[in-house]
């Protein structure tokens, strides 16, 4: 586990209110100081279906640094989930490869944890048993992890609900439980597939703050797939925008907002300008520079 020093994390309460933050628009490689954790090399994927072949990804390359938070954003059906599933080793690629920690991914890897849109709690197990599901599959002794798991349950605010069955929990609570389940065995990379897509806006804000907190405290490498632009900018170090199917890299937006970020910041002009820039990129499939936001006719600042 590589613990990375992130200078931008130090931003205190003052940094939250710093207002407009300039967003450089050029593609930047991950900071040279951080080693590459995961690399996607020329990923191409075709699905065979009954009605023919679906071309989901086309020659997509991407590097994720250790301890980095990357959001993958794109229109629905653009291959975001396909990319994530390939990174997790659940799918193989038609062409190209995924490299994790220097070795190609050929199947599920123990250093990866996945979180899906559906919390996927097993309805016949209570919350505590659900959290221990990975240990059973991995045939791992859960005892050394007990304090860790208790701490995580406490961190996400589920203490006292351990004996509840999934159907007794709200959607947000179920998703919290799935986050604990994912973190319980301490993977270094977390892949999140639209984890909060099914939640209401308020719960989603809450979960985004929680994920930011967990990421800042644990220094995990996170790849987070979403179709919500605000959510992507709020969470990410870099937002990777894909084109409509087949998914190609449209543009990478570095997000230099200081952390911890607050929900209020998502209403700042600089933030909104970035939202518009990303929206234009998604619509046109290519980044056309900052001036595109002018076309919307909104007076900023």
């Amino acid at each position, binding site marked *: 586990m590589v613990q990375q020093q992130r200078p931008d994390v130090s931003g205190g309460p003052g940094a939250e209110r710093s207002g407009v933050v300039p967003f450089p628009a050029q593609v930047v490689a991950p900071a040279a100081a951080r080693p590459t954790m995961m690399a996607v090399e020329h990923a191409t994927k075709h*699905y*065979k*279906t009954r009605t023919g072949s*679906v071309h*989901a990804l086309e020659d997509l390359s991407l590097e994720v640094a250790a301890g980095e938070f990357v959001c993958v954003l794109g229109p629905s*059906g653009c291959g975001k*989930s*396909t990319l*994530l*599933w390939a990174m*997790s*080793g*659940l*799918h*193989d690629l038609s062409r190209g490869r995924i490299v994790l920690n220097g070795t190609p991914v*050929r*199947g*599920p*890897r*123990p250093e*990866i*944890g*996945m979180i*899906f*849109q*559906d919390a*996927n709690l*097993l*309805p*016949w197990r209570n919350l505590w048993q659900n959290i221990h*599901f*990975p240990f*059973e*599959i*991995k045939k791992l002794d859960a005892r050394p992890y007990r304090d860790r798991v208790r701490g995580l349950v406490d961190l996400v605010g589920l203490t006292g609900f351990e004996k509840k*069955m999934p*159907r007794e929990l709200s959607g947000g609570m179920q998703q919290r439980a799935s986050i604990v389940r994912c973190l319980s065995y301490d993977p270094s990379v977390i892949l999140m*597939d639209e984890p909060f897509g099914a939640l209401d806006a308020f719960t989603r804000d809450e979960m985004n703050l929680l994920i930011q907190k967990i990421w800042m405290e644990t220094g995990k490498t996170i790849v987070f797939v979403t179709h919500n632009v605000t959510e992507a900018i709020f969470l990410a170090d870099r937002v990777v925008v894909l084109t409509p199917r087949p998914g190609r890299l449209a543009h990478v937006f570095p997000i230099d907002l200081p952390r911890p970020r607050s929900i209020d910041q998502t209403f700042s002009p600089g933030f909104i300008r970035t939202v518009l820039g990303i929206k234009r990129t998604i619509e046109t499939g290519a980044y056309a520079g900052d001036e595109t936001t002018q076309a919307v006719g909104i007076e900023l600042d």
Partner: protein
Amino acid sequence: MASDLRDTIPTFGQADAHRQEEVSVRNWSALSSVSVARSGWEALVIVLVAVAVIGGAEVWVRAAGIESYVFPKPSEIGRALIDNFDLFRPHLIATLRVLFSGYALGAAVGLVLAAVITQFPFMEKVITPYILLLVTTPMIALVPLLILKLGFGDSPRVIAVALAAGPMVMINSATGFRRTDLGKIALARSYGASTLQIFARIRFPLALPMIIVGLMVGAIFGLLTAVGAEMVGSGEGLGNRLMFYSARIQMANFFAIIVMLAVMGILIYVLFYAVGKKWASWEA
């Protein structure tokens, strides 16, 4: 690479859409809404109604002057049940023996077949018509043939019961095993689960409610077939006694046997209902 996920485009949501329509232990039949009395008052009403129905039948049979050889008084049936139970016991044991051995055989084969066959959709297409044939054909019809082949021992009846119960267990269990929740399978795969682990930890628990329904329907069909087979060709068993007592117009004994069969059927139902409540209550 996980074969069950290879060409699955990861868009979920529709996978769960069909879940409401499925049969489970709870909504399998109108009978399953029957539940245990919640309070002493409810219990009292239930007992009072039972007394009124049985007592009413008694009063009606007496008042209308219905002959005992047409419809015996409930009190006569009760007395026959108690006084002649020693005569019934060996036949009860014979029926239970046939039922248990046939059911065990049929249910085991049906369950294993369902688990295996649902993993191979093509094989399922090939075999399902024959299973449907076995489900829809009354197995009692085969008993004379089975007796010709297997003689007068237990075996023709055991085979008939197995042939009646097995396909019922299989067809319901197969419905259960066909419920694949790709999200949960993907989750388990992401932890590096083997196919066997996915079967034991996801597919089987997911199928369990339907398996229990199948086992219940199979047991009831097994009982029907066991009794029917004894009526067609057997020297012992409760079915044989039905023929025996009706031929001798001993209607009190005849109805006593019917009461025993009804109790057996209800016990089967109650047993599986309890099992379902314990092991499949998550699906409510």
